[in-house]
């Protein structure tokens, strides 16, 4: 099970120099693109500040989707959950991040780690989709 720690977000904005060319995993040509544009990470990552919450991942049930322990999730509650989205869900007293799968027989919470089983949500579960994950921020 993933556990989550949800934080409030500071609204301070910081503009950073933006290197405006496609960066490949090699050496970029110094002649390409141009410095001078700035990028504000808040603008880039948060389109609905009022609806955006931040959570840190604990656990490894989503590692095959690139979500590792310690990663920061941006949750945009203004997004409507859809089949295949990754969402922060609340189920039976716990927060968890999983892929939401909507199938003919109901909603499934699908982990991205073979060691964890899928979970079929039924009427007995105390369940809510708390918010859709819009970005993952990870330290390399």
């Amino acid at each position, binding site marked *: 099970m993933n556990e989550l720690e949800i934080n409030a977000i500071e609204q301070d904005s910081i503009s950073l120099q933006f290197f405006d060319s496609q960066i490949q995993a090699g050496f970029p040509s110094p002649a390409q693109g141009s410095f001078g544009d700035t990028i504000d990470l808040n603008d880039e990552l948060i389109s609905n500040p009022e609806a955006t919450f931040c959570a840190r991942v604990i656990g490894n049930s989503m590692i095959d989707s690139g979500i590792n322990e310690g990663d920061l999730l941006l949750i945009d*509650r203004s997004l409507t959950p859809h089949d295949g989205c990754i969402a922060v869900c609340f189920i039976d007293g716990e927060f968890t991040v999983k892929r939401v799968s909507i199938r003919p027989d109901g909603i499934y919470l699908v982990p991205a780690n073979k060691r964890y089983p899928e979970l079929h949500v039924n009427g007995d579960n105390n369940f809510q989709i708390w918010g859709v994950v819009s970005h993952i921020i990870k330290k390399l």
Partner: protein
Amino acid sequence: MYCLADCNNFFVSCERLYDPTLNGKPVVVLSNNDGCVIARSNEAKAMGIPMGCPAFQIKKHIGLANLNDVVQLSARHTLYHDISLRIMSLLGRSCERLEVYSVDEAFFQAPFNNPAHDEHFLHELVQKIYKYVGIPVSIGYAPTRTLAKIASHIAKKNPGTTRGVYGLSDDSLIASALEKTAIEDVWGIGRRLTEALHNRGVATAAQFVQYPTSLIRSLFNITVAHTHAELKGIDCTAASPVTIAHKSIMNSRTFGGLITSRKEVQAAIVHFAEHCSRQLRSEGSVAGTVMVYVRGDRYREDLPFYSNSCQLNLATPSSSSLTIVHYALQAFACIFKEGYGYRKAGVMLLNIQPAKSIQMNLFDKEDHNKQNRLMQAIDRINNRYSTQAINLASTSATGEWKPRQKHLNQSAQSSLHIYSGMVVSNKKNKKNLSE
């Protein structure tokens, strides 16, 4: 039409957002040092726990129920403040003339002059706030604020039938609402007034309204007379001491061009707020309310037009630039929208009173003496050298907002900057959700 948006059991709702296991349970939030009950869930209300009840007396009120079933939580005001800003910001962007009345209540104007359209709009707003921020809100609308307050109360008490929105849009609806409203539940009628009115046989708002205006005026003060008129549907905003000052200080400017950058407009707001607070200090006064407005260019038909304002009440009236700029920036954050051009902006200080007469707020944590000394020092330096020798760091963006002044005499070459972290921010509210 005035609308009042009121968050349901606000502190409890905030706690439930971050801990849904609390849903359906009786929950109370306790004041600092876990003294008294300052918020109750509906379940806690139903058990008979009164508002303001000391924590150790809860047991006395719940009869045979088990005290362990009542979840008691310590207040986390930074968390509530963050959630409140989110809601006020959504309201500010969706509505006009937002007045944040308290952490969980705000007045604004209904956008259409048509009850059906307004009702539809307000229902969508309630749903949007619930989806985005997870907090249930009730909205009442009526011809006056006092009636809007009653309407929001009805919306809150009848979520099934009202779905969170109730309007007192015609006289018969108003009359029947007043019948059902106890006099002590009317906004502005406190405990002593209630007693005085009860002694005269007035138990409901309807009976109060029946009282002749002349008698009300001779028996009570002007505030009570305003409440009386507002219940009759006569808007007393202009005369109400709650929102309108005897005097105001205003600083605003039409920009040299149309500005789209948030930073630039914000820098202008900081400058205006600073300028207003300096004037306030020079008069030995303090302000209780900060109002901010922004306006686009109505004559540019090629661009969408946007204009809005927001006012906030200070925890304690102040003349400190730091405090006033802080509130101005919060108000600004509630109304600024990306993607519009801004031609004009301004800051207005209201509820101005002599500095000597301030009533301190018990919950205010600012060190006012320290701020006063800082402000005096800054004023002395600015008076001696140049009005802009020292200013707050946030005023110094590129200066695009400033009027075209190509021929300024640059007497101040070096300017000091005071860096202060007072952009609308919420220091990290960490909470481990998986205890």
